[in-house]
């Protein structure tokens, strides 16, 4: 599969035809999509049209953007004007937003060609993409296994070569975990670096958009393009776009890398083995490995599964069958609401709405939601202490390689445990990314997670680039 940076420089330099690139990717999609089901929608006609326009611009000598002609897939929870945006939910099936998300505008301005909208766990709630109302996505490395989730379609699209890159959203690990399971790079940037305007909200204080790519340089390039202040998002950090590509070749000499000594239990040995190999590689490259303690890490799951559903219960209340999306008709208003939401939402979404509504309701707020916010502070404080002695921290991304379909669907808690290593960065608002680092059991890919503190993306990318060189 071609690299994003090669396509962009080829197209803008006139040595590569955007239309040819797009045709090549569309051919791969038609060859294997029925097996993988990475997409909810392939926008082939629009992609061809956009590619042609870029080729014309190049021929006419016009300046084209940093992603000229790059085929990119979007998680189907990012609004695209006039193009169906479903969140893999029946309640939104058929909905064509009247506006573009800020990231979509940025991609278009950079000359990227959007090839389609990718499958996800309904409203991004899940870790396997099995919760999609439109059927699961399969892992391109082994179609009997899940691609991870919730951005499973975006991860699979890059792993299968359906797109040079894709965007996902990460609320508790939804970019990093599928990246690890599909053997691609996935980045969750610092909360506030990429605009959330037009990203369909799951949990507002945790959601971040980030890239999936086949290597670290592509991820850096794409993140540079989509990051930066957006006045439409009040939580957007007022800073220019990240600068990342320039640090990739700097190496890790002298860097201090944290090893968490009180990592939560439950990680498979094949994954832990790769983690050790990663520490070795960084040590050989001149980094120092430093032990750190994160005692509150064990409470992350609880804090997360109270905070995220609480925010979600409120964010998902707007799906009421009045202004957009689908309605189940009934004789009176309240019956219409209930019938619409009962039919429109899947089981996991309902479970989280229930959990969140309960955690916020009178009489339970202090015991659940209020307490969870305090635990969130503890975790953030733990990290602050750790980052006094290290530049980045390394953990596994996922406790195991990709698992088989159906193996966790009966037990919500078992599924939630998939996120045990990824959730802490969302709670703290920190950047974290998953880099492929060899394989585990059954030759399935293993991802190593690099964590850094707020706006510590440069340190994180240096370490990720080093791991990539060593793998």
């Amino acid at each position, binding site marked *: 599969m071609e690299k994003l940076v090669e396509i962009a420089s080829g197209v803008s330099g006139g040595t590569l035809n955007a239309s040819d690139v797009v045709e090549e990717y569309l051919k791969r999609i038609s060859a294997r999509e029925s097996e993988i089901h990475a997409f909810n929608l392939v926008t082939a006609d629009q992609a061809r049209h956009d590619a042609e326009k870029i080729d014309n611009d190049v021929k006419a000598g016009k300046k084209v953007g940093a992603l000229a002609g790059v085929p990119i897939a979007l998680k189907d929870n990012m609004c695209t004007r006039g193009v169906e945006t479903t969140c893999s939910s029946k309640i939104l099936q058929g909905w064509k937003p*009247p506006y573009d998300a800020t990231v979509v505008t940025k991609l278009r301005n950079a000359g990227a060609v959007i090839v389609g909208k990718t499958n996800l766990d309904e409203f991004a709630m899940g870790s396997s993409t099995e919760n999609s109302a439109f059927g699961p996505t399969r892992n391109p490395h082994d179609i009997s296994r899940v691609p991870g989730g919730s951005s499973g379609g975006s991860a699979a699209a890059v792993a299968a070569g359906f797109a040079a890159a894709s965007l996902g959203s990460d609320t508790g690990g939804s970019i990093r975990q599928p990246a690890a399971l599909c053997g691609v790079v996935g980045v969750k940037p*610092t909360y*506030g670096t990429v605009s959330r305007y037009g990203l369909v909200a799951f949990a507002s*204080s945790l959601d971040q958009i980030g890239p999936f790519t086949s290597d670290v340089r592509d991820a850096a390039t794409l993140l540079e393009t989509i990051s930066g202040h957006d*006045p439409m998002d009040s*939580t957007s*950090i007022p800073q220019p776009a990240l600068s990342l590509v320039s640090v990739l070749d700097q190496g890790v000499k002298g860097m201090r890398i944290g090893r968490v000594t009180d990592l939560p239990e439950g990680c498979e040995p094949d994954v832990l083995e790769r983690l050790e190999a990663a520490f070795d590689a960084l040590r050989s490259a001149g980094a120092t490995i430093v032990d750190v303690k994160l005692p509150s890490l*064990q409470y992350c*799951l*609880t*804090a997360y*599964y*109270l905070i995220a559903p609480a925010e979600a*219960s409120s964010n998902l*209340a707007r799906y*009421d*069958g*009045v*202004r*957009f*999306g689908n*309605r189940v008709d*009934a*004789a*009176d*208003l*309240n019956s*219409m*609401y*209930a019938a619409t*939401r*009962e039919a429109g*939402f899947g089981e996991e979404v*309902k*479970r989280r*709405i*229930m*959990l969140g*509504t*309960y955690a916020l*309701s009178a*009489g339970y707020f202090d*015991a*659940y939601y*209020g*307490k*969870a*916010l*305090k*635990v*969130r*502070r*503890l975790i*953030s404080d733990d990290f602050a202490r750790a980052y006094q002695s290290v530049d980045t921290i390394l953990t596994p991304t996922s406790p195991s390689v990709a698992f088989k379909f159906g193996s966790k669907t009966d037990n*919500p*808690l078992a599924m939630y445990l998939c996120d045990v290593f990824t959730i802490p960065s969302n*709670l*703290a*608002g920190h950047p974290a990314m998953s880099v492929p680092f060899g394989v585990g059991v059954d030759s399935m890919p293993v991802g190593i997670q690099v964590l850094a503190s*707020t706006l510590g993306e440069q340190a994180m990318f240096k370490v990720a680039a080093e791991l990539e060189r060593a793998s």
Partner: protein
Amino acid sequence: MAEKISQETVIKVSRLARLSLNTEEAEKMTAQLAGMLEHFRDIDALDLADVEPMTQPYPLKNVLREDVIAPSLDRDEVLGQAPTAESGRFRVPPTIGFDV
């Protein structure tokens, strides 16, 4: 922390959330929520009295916009996406009970 969640509470919560659960669903939901809430009791042991709640990851304040009008969305495009519309407005079934 609070006592074990009852089916009655689950039904009350489902009404608040406008999700109509039948008895069977309510039973299953009660069991699942009880299991999760049981797991979430791990934080009960923490002394959180002096801990400041953390609601947002990045400390910003006074994010403001100037009072300048931007064009409206196109009404027909928007109403075209609505389940039902009439006379330039969104149509809904009658409210039973009183107005809020």
